[in-house]
């Protein structure tokens, strides 16, 4: 375990709790999907929790987040309340996007969560623009932009990296390199498979880190955010990680082997951190039990909130197609 971050008792528990919240929230979503209460695409973050949790530790309230369709982890780690997220999964008007976005499109203005974007690469230019506004209006604010390694193939990645660097914008580019874009392995889709080296092409500082270790991710994110807040412009982090489950719910996973998956599961960020915290006696089995009970309760509450939720009035279907005013 990296220890660039001071990992005391409280912080260790926080990292573990935040990752567990995501893991269990999604486990519940799978149940509800099988019960057909959740429909559409469902992209799980299962295995990648350390990335969102680690990065969010380095962010403050003033900062902004742009995510992808695989956005459960980002929203939860950012602190968007679980109830509205679960209600969104169920398509209820109490959802964080009034039930209009579903799994792929969580939005939360209160926490400057600018949404899960389901067009690969589509969020990067938006993040660049948020950073332009922040540079003018919110001195020191950073926009964390999450995307997969597959997005690095898109022209928008190239254009956005360049804009962010020439204008020295406060953007933290976080590439979640889970080695596959749906079923396309990095080796056959990218000439440069060391994704972090792409940053060099824009003279942008970048590094690769172990995306299965929340502490290492947090340490790197803190370095990056410090550099950005110091006015040095954008920063690029490649987090090597792995998705334990299918790309979405319809995926035979013909493109990878059971062995490979098993190998990566040995590096499960949650199991690893839990083990380490126990071995170092930083936390007790009892505390873990408490933590898990608390999360279970939070999830039950979220589900109850969602189930009790209502459907948006069909008469409001066209509401917000055109806005009457800019929300404050």
């Amino acid at each position, binding site marked *: 375990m990296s220890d660039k971050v001071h990992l005391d008792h409280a912080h260790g528990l926080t990292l573990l709790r935040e990752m567990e919240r995501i893991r269990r929230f999604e486990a519940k979503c799978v149940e509800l999907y099988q019960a057909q209460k959740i429909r559409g695409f469902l992209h799980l973050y299962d295995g990648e929790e350390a990335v969102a949790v680690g990065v969010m530790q380095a962010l403050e309230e003033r900062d902004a987040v742009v995510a992808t369709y695989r956005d459960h982890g980002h929203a939860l780690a950012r602190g968007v309340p679980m109830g509205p997220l679960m209600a969104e999964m169920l398509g209820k008007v109490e959802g964080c996007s009034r039930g209009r976005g579903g799994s792929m499109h969580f939005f939360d203005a209160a926490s400057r969560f600018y949404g899960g974007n389901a067009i690969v690469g589509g969020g990067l230019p938006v993040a660049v623009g948020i950073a332009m506004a922040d540079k003018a209006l919110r001195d020191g604010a950073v926009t964390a932009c999450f995307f997969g390694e*597959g997005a690095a193939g898109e022209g928008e990645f190239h254009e956005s990296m360049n804009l962010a660097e020439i204008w020295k914008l406060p953007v933290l580019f976080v590439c979640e390199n889970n080695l596959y874009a749906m*079923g*396309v392995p990095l080796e056959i889709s990218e000439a440069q498979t060391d994704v972090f080296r792409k940053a060099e092409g824009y003279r942008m500082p970048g590094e690769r880190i172990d995306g299965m270790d929340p502490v290492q991710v947090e340490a790197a994110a803190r370095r990056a955010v410090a550099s950005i807040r110091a006015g040095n412009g954008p920063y690029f982090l490649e987090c090597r990680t792995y998705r334990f489950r299918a790309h979405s719910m319809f995926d035979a996973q013909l493109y990878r082997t059971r062995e490979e998956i098993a190998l990566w599961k040995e590096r499960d960020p949650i199991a690893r951190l839990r083990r380490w915290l126990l071995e170092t006696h930083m936390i007790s089995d009892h505390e873990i039990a408490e933590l898990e009970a608390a999360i279970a309760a939070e999830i039950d509450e979220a589900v109850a909130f969602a189930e009790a939720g209502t459907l948006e009035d069909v008469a409001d279907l066209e509401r917000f*197609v055109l806005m009457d005013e800019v929300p404050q």
Partner: protein
Amino acid sequence: MSAEPIRMTYREACRQAIRDALSADPRTFVMGEDVGLYGGCYAVTKGLIDEFGPDRIRDTPLAESAFVGAGIGAAMAGMRPIVEIMTCNFSLLALDQIMNNAATIPHMSGGQFAVPLVIRMATGAGRQLAAQHSHSLEGWYAHIPGIKVLAPGTIEDARFMLKAALADPNPVLIFEHIVLYNAEGDLDPGVSEVDIARAKIRRPGRDVSLVTYGNSLPKALDAAAELAGQGIEAEVVDLRVLRPLDDATIFESVGRTRRCIIIDEGWRSGSISAEIAARLADEMFFELDAPVRRICAREVPVPYAAHLEEAALPRTADIVATAKALVRPQ
């Protein structure tokens, strides 16, 4: 026909069409995101990489503009590519290549270069995929001179349109509806090709023409069946080809029924339904006995919630109600 009808899904029909094309012409290959190892986002190309290898079932990076442009260049230089854009929602990233190169170069080069390219894409809503994954852009593409636009609404068209499209010297866009992939039906073993120049009357009727295509076709047919029970004989015209439109078939039908309702899953304003209504208002003005009605998607980004998505799309009940009001005005 003596032989047994062949039962298959729309998805299998698309796959078989690709298999035939690859077997028939060494210049043909498939290129797109996840067409290979993954087996296709909607499993259309499943298994084909094992049959034809990774050069002819070519997985691409996420780079819509470049691989569509590459398809254009390959077609100009002698190949007969089938480019798959996973869904039309992502085709916006390749629109410059489609409009400014594929649709333009043959004319602008004075006929020196053709672009015999086929671009397949999934289209449509109905699976709660939310706004960014639920566009129906085929009618919008039909605005562009220099391309042809096909929308198979039946297993037979899914099975045979590709062959005709590949034989065409022009860029042909084929829009396959995501909701139809699982549709199952019987193929007449006597049929081995379809005409991609003509619309087709799927059900004859004398009281009103229901002009439609794609996944609105089954809805129109259901509506026609229901209307028949109430003594209204609706004729269902399947456009099949959105560009160039087969005016003759549409006008002939409306000339007989003197009433027309167009059903289109695209957004209403400036849709293909608008073009058809405009042509009727111009060229069939004196034959029409009633206003030309349109039943389109509501003009909203399609929401995730089931009840909202359902409300945003054309519904059989709307077709029935509109037809009754048109044929039997109060």
